[in-house]
């Protein structure tokens, strides 16, 4: 006890010295080293950091250019080879054994696309409606993940299954029906997902107002909610159209190929389509067929560009007229 009391008072530990800011001495110090440090003489970022900034953003802008370059290269390559020898009879003449045009392929592509929009559109929109309006937690999650898994199956696998199960197994042969069923299985997940998200974005107040007015749920759905979700649903349908126009692998083994205009019979009648012309005609030894291959590529690029512009127009229009709840 006495020892503790007799201990001489010790100064606080060195680290606990009060910080003594000597502004005068700081002002007279050497400025921090230039370049490697954080700031320069005038408080701006050092030249190293500014250089990194310039180089970094330069590289990013270069990345944007490098993304645009292949697009221009592809379009130029197709246009430069197709346009010089273009004649409008390519669109009006069907393919024949020794050349001809692309009329039956264009009609075939349009027919297949229309069929997919009707078939997959119906199933997809109904599916999206169920998932957003009626589905409860676990069932909804299960159905949604099943749909997503289906979206991840490669198109050639679906083409194989369509060939084995529908063309050969069900004896439909190369036919419009087999092509429509296979492409619909491919596109329904996309339509369902976009419909569901479009419906979810419709404000609940719309539905509540309709219920307050005494409308039945089905009427609300068709008259109010779906109408408000039309832009989103249309985007989904445009995705489906883009897929039907551009896919080859599933159609190779379900639609077959034909030189004549597609008949409307659903089975036993193969259908020609544009991507087949690009896939097959380019390595024929005949110049006519190689030219047709480029012409088909040109028509495809034009169709895709039209689809993109259409989807942008729809989005712009819907944003103009959208209500914010």
């Amino acid at each position: 006890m006495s020892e503790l009391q007799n201990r001489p008072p010790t100064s606080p530990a060195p680290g606990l010295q009060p910080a003594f800011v000597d502004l005068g001495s700081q002002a007279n110090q050497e400025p921090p080293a230039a370049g490697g440090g954080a700031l320069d003489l005038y408080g701006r970022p050092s030249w190293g950091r500014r250089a990194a900034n310039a180089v970094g953003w330069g590289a990013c802008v270069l990345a944007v250019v490098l993304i645009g370059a292949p697009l221009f290269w592809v379009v130029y390559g197709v246009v430069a080879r197709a346009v010089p020898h273009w004649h409008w009879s390519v669109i009006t003449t069907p393919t024949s054994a020794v050349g001809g045009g692309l009329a039956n392929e264009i009609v075939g592509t349009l027919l297949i696309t229309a069929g997919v929009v009707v078939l997959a559109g119906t199933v997809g929109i109904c599916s999206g409606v169920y998932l957003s309006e009626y589905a409860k937690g676990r069932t909804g999650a299960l159905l949604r993940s099943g749909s997503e898994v289906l979206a991840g199956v490669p198109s050639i696998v679906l083409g194989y299954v369509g060939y084995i199960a529908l063309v050969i197994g069900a004896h439909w042969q190369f036919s419009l029906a087999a092509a429509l069923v296979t492409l619909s299985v491919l596109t329904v997940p996309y339509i369902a997902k976009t419909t569901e998200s479009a419906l979810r974005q419709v404000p609940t107040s719309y539905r509540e107002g309709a219920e307050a007015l005494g409308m039945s749920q089905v009427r609300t759905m068709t008259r109010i909610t779906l109408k408000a979700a039309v832009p989103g649903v249309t985007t989904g349908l445009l995705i489906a159209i883009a897929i039907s126009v551009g896919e080859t692998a599933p159609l190779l083994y379900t639609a077959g190929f034909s030189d004549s205009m597609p008949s409307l019979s659903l089975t036993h009648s193969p259908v020609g389509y544009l991507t087949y012309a690009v896939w097959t005609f380019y390595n024929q030894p005949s110049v006519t067929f190689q030219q047709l291959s480029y012409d088909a590529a040109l028509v495809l690029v034009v169709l895709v560009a039209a689809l993109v512009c259409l989807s942008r127009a729809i989005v712009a229009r819907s944003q103009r007229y959208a209500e914010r709840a």
Partner: protein
Amino acid sequence: MALAARHPLEAEPPRGWAAWLPAAVRRAARDGSWARYLTGAAALLPVLALAAVLAVLAAKAWPAMKVNGTGFLGRSTWQPGSTYAAAVRTDGVLHPAGSEYGALALIVGTLASSGLAVVFAVPLSVGAALAVVEKLPRRASYVVGMFLELLAGIPSVVFGLWGITSFGPALARDVYPVVAKHMPDIAVLRFLRGDTGYGEGLLTAGLVLAVMIVPIVAATTRDLLRQVPALAKEGAAALGMNDWEIACKVSVPWVRSGIIGAAVLGLARALGETMAVAMVSGSLLGTMPLNLYAKMGTVASTIVQQLDGAFSDGTGFEVRTLAELALVLAVITLLTNVAARLLVRKVSTVALPVGRGV
């Protein structure tokens, strides 16, 4: 019986053809729940279709799996056997004598070309997305968005046509010989030396695939970067960081797992890609590519090119082996997609409340 069949609130008995419908159907028609059942059936269809696809594949592939065995994934051969000699039976499955199939070279080709595609596409996409979100004016981002949609919409056969007619030959003429000549002769880099071919091969396929997956990776990254809260970026700016440092040290790390998810999404797309790869890869069956520029085959391109002639093997064994390949491809892409969805979903559950309400 008649009383129980009638709804208590039915004022009068149903007339005409409605009387023939069962009571449950009449009830559903009246209170609108038919819509629930109809749309529920529609929502069930994708799941049923998935089950049907897997069932058909499994049923078709099972005999081939029995004969090809587990070595199927480890072998590189593609030997249809003596189709004109008498067929033999192994494990009760009919197949040509001497037939031997192995998918190793194809799986390696698939993973290598898709891996190359991701390696080339991800830096480009992240850089472009950064530029679009942070630096470029509104108009430019609108135009870049249109470019991405156009790239995404162009059919893969058109990319393949471009690859074999312009892109591949240009690369083989101007780029590959330069790269191959200047590669040092060390162990790993030896793969980049040697005969550079005529433009059809592994590297060309990887580059064409990269161009095709850039849209999905760039669009996903752009949407992710737009979700980085302004407060975090402004805080970094207040600390004195310049734009590039904010991008590198705040934005990108914020969405890091999302970017990885976007890359895996692109990988999944590249794994399933068929037509462009079939046109530019050289379609080699049964051997591993000897160097980076050599011809090779992928699982998808093999299926699309061999299926139409597969029934000429009268035993049907080649068709079944192709089903086995399709199953392998479906499993690989499935796992990749599941991984991608898990990674991309994570970013939307970032715990920090910063930014909400500001």
